[in-house]
Structures are given as C-alpha cells and as structure tokens.
C-alpha cells in the first residue's frame, strides 16, 4: 500500500510543519513571562489571568458567541432547504439561478459582500425604516447570507450520495413528503447538518471583514477587537486567547474524530460478522 515516494513524504512533512509551526510557537509564547512576546523570559500563566480580567475581550467573545450561534442555526435551516431543493427537486424553474446564488458566496471576496450588504442595509433603513441602525441584527443577517452557502454545499453533497429509494420507500409505505423528510432524510443526514452548523458557527465566529462593514457602535465582535489590538502590535494576552481557542477546537475535533472513527470501526466489524454468520 505504501506507494509514496520520498519526495511526496518529505513534502507532506514540510507542509504539515508549515501549517503547525506558527501555531505551536504561538502557544509556547503564551506562557512567556516576558512582555516582549518573542523573547523567552521564563514560564508563566500571567497572561491568561490578564485575559480573563479584560472585560472588553470577554464581552466581545460573548457577543461573538451569541451571533455565531444564531447565525449557525439560521444558516443551517436556510442551507438545508436550499441543499434539499438543489439535490432532490430535479429541474424546477429558476434552478440555475439558485445554484449560482447558493455557491457564489463561497468564493466572493469578503470586502465585496460586506460593502454590498452595508449599502443594502442603509438603503433599506431609508426606504422602510428597518433595520434600525446597525448591530447584532445586521451582523447576523450578513453572516447567515454567506455561511448558508457552505451548509448548502455540505447538505447537497450528502444528499447526492444518499440512496433516493430510501425516501421513496418511506413514501411508498404511506408517509407524506414532509413526514418523509423528518422521519427518514433528516435523521440520516443529521451528521452532515451538524457539520454544516459547526462550519457556519466557525465562519461567523471568525469573520472580521464583513462584520466591520455591517457593525454599528457598541457591537464589536471578538475579531474586530483582536484586529484593532493586533494593528497596534503583538500583545501577549492575544497569544493566550489564541491558545485557548486553538486548544478548544483541537480538543473538540479530536474527541469528535475519535468518536467517528470508533463508530465506523464498530460498524465495519458488525457488517463483517453479519456476513460471516450467514455463510
């Protein structure tokens, strides 16, 4: 099975080093006593303490979390509907436009999306008086618009590999289309939808550019706060914050990944056993 040449292996190792070395260094320097971020001055956790006393960062993190959760939920609903329509409804009228609209936000430069949404919100406020000013509402709407595209792609490609006869079988046994969706399709594609939710959450949690355009006074999300701090130079408490975020994501992903691998292994074993038992 091992067909990799030395060149490929070397490139792979180099690639992973390139991806992880900066993160590892950042984690290391978060435990640096010295204020000069890159000069080692002994081990310390004082920056973590400072981080937790920084009301501005904590407030921004909480705001970001709220927006990310609302966005993820809304984007998942919209993206699932769009994915369902694209994967299952054949050639309905307006399908090409929906395909274009649903995938364009994936690659659209953020400055364009951000600018255009802000101009829309301003125009809407002038025309109908809503949304009044800019803040959580406008940020959430903007995030939903670009992150639903990711959910759409995830759901659509999951449905493309799902045997359509499962849904037909349920219908054949007497379930109406809406019931088929909730009893059969939804439970089976739930892992994909969950992945889509997490993706939408992360995208929103991480977004700086679009947020900067559509945010208003008093609603600075975490990336906005970090960006303004970083522009002024490196600061050790940002290292600490980054470390916490990386560790949280890494822990979550590892546990989830291991769980999935274990499930798969158990399943494979059961499949083998079932085949063996029959012979």
């Amino acid at each position, binding site marked *: 099975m091992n067909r990799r*040449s030395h060149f490929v*292996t070397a490139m*792979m190792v*180099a*690639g992973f080093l*390139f*991806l992880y070395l*900066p*993160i590892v260094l*950042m984690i290391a320097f978060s435990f640096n006593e010295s204020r000069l971020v*890159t*000069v080692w001055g002994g081990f310390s956790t004082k920056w973590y303490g400072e981080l937790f006393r920084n009301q501005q960062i904590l407030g921004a993190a909480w705001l970001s979390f709220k927006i990310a959760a609302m966005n993820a939920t809304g984007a998942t609903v*919209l*993206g699932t509907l*769009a994915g369902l*329509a694209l994967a299952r*409804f054949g050639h309905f009228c307006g399908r090409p436009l*929906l395909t274009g*609209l*649903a*995938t*364009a*936000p*994936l*690659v*659209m*430069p*953020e*400055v*364009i999306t951000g600018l255009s*949404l802000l*101009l*829309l919100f301003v*125009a809407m406020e002038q025309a109908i008086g809503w949304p009044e000013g800019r803040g959580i509402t406008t940020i959430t709407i903007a995030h939903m618009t670009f992150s639903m595209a990711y959910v*759409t*792609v995830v759901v659509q490609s999951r449905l*493309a*590999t799902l045997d359509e006869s499962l849904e037909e079988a349920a219908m054949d046994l007497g379930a109406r289309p*809406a*019931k088929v969706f*909730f*009893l059969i399709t939804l*439970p089976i594609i739930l892992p994909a939808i969950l992945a889509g939710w997490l993706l939408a959450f992360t995208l929103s949690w*991480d977004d*700086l*550019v679009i947020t*900067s*355009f559509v945010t208003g006074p008093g609603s600075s999300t975490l990336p906005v706060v*970090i*960006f303004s701090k*970083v522009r002024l130079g*490196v600061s050790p408490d*940002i290292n600490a914050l*980054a470390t916490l*975020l990386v560790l949280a*994501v*890494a822990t979550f*992903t590892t546990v989830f*990944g291991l769980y999935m*691998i274990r499930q798969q292994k158990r399943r494979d074993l059961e499949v083998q056993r079932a085949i063996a038992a029959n012979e």
Partner: protein
Amino acid sequence: MSKPFLLGELLAWIRAHGPWRWASQGLRARGYSGRTLVTAVPYLWLALFFLLPFLIVLKISVSEMQLAMPPYQPLVSWISDGVIALRISFENYLFLLEDSLYWKSYLNSIRTAAISTVICLLIGYPMAYGIARSPAAWRNLLLLLVMLPFWTSFLLRVYAWIGILKNNGVINNLLMALGIIDEPIVMLQTNFAMYIGIVYSYLPFMVLPLYTAIEKLDQSLLEAAANLGCRPVKAFFRITVPLTMTGIIAGCMLVFIPAVGEFVIPALLGGPDSLMIGRVLWEEFFNNRDWPVASAVAIVMLFVLVIPIMIYQRSQGQQLGAHR
C-alpha cells in the same frame, strides 16, 4: 430513535389543526406545494440579501458623493412640477481609470493571487497526494490535521506570523543567535510576508478538493500505464494530472478568487506599498468615506472575477453531478 416519530406526530397535529390547514389548502388550491415553500425561502433570502445588494452597489457606483449620511446623492430626484431628474455619473469609473493607483492595485492583486495560487498548488498537490496514498487508517487523521487550522481563527493564524517574521521575531532572533546574520532581515510588511500569509491561510482550501479528486483516482490506471511501459513521472503528468483536473481547478479557484480581494493579510503582513485592491476598497470606504468610489472599485473587481467564479461553479457542478 423515538424522537423523529414524536416530531412527525407533532407535525401531523399541526397539519390537522386550524390555520395551517386553511393556509396549506389555500396554497394547494392555487397550485403551490411544500416543494415551492422549500425552494422559495432560501431563494427569497438570497435574492434579497445577495442579489439585490449588488444592484444597489451598481447604483451607488454611478452616483455622486456628498457630505452627508448616506454619503451619496440619489440617482432619481423629484424636481418641482413632477419632473424626474435622473443623474447617472460615470465619473467614479473615469476616476479609477485616471488614477494609476487603482489599476496598479488591480494588476498587483491579480498577480499576487496568481503567484500565491501556484505556490499553494505546488505545496498542496504533493500533500494531497501523500495523504490519499497513505494507509487507510492514517488518511482521516491526516485530513483532520489539514482541516484543523481552518477551524481555528484565521485572524489569529495570520497574527502568529507577525511574531515570527518581525525584526525581533523568532526567525531573526534564531539567525542572530546562530551568528548567521548581524542585522535583522526585514521581512514583516514586505511582499514576502504577504505571500507567506496568503499561502499559509489558503493551503487547506487547496488540499481538500485535490485530496477528493486524487482519492477517487483508480490506482489500477497507473498500474496499467506502468504495465504498458510508461515511466512514473510521465504517468503522473499524462494520467494523474488530467484525471484530477476538476480538483485542481476547484482548489485553484478557491484560493485565487478570495485572495484577489483579500484585506486582512495585506493589512497585517504587507507593507504600505503592497497595493491590494481589497485594501484600497477598505481605505476608500472607511478612511475616505467615499462610498461611490468604493462601490465602483467593487463592481470592477466583480467584473475581473466573473470568469474565475464561473469556472469554479462549473467545476463544482461537475463534481456534484458525478455522484449521480
């Protein structure tokens, strides 16, 4: 799994009662079904918050700036006696043409994005190939490792490079301690730093579609080629590369398109002379508060990107179509 059943029963109850029934009967009588509803919701959302905004950007790009909020003049205004005045001005576009700053930054953005894309491809292809040819048990773990940075903050990962590249950063400190250099090398706020930042941030977007394409490639094709007397390097270029072309195109577009409009990386790592169009737009909007010019910049950028976006969507459509 009793939950789905509960949900289903709840749904049935809602359907059997009151307003829902009237509404759905009314809709059905006019030829609408659940399908229409499922399609209409995301459709309307995208039309309102994705399509309409572009039209507004287009509109504002041909209006004139004014010192007010919003800082542009209306296109259509009512003059007395019901006469409507339509003022369309292409001044903003002319301005973009006249000032070399703009077209230089367009060219620079495209060049920077293209070079970064090529570097990403050169690093990403061997990585994706190596992962796809790893033992099956390893593959998911390696893939997870590629994805992991993507799940952590983009901003913080770019920030990490500041600490590495700056004058008293990790690299310079290391080189000086080893006695290789006496003076720190200026790396931060140069084009070099910008390339590093873009390649570093967008590498996962390159590796994932490439992996998907390479993993699907039937290994026996290469064995057949070898059996027919084709050397490995030649087989790679004549068989592997053509058959993974959808992955290559998707990966390149996923890097190139957002990189053209990138703002954060040039702002944090690039120098003051590294003119990227995303940064120009940002400054036009936030610093000069010239919304019409910013809109014109966006519209021109969109025109530059229309072809790559269409290429991307086609390759994406092929990939999803291949499943069926």
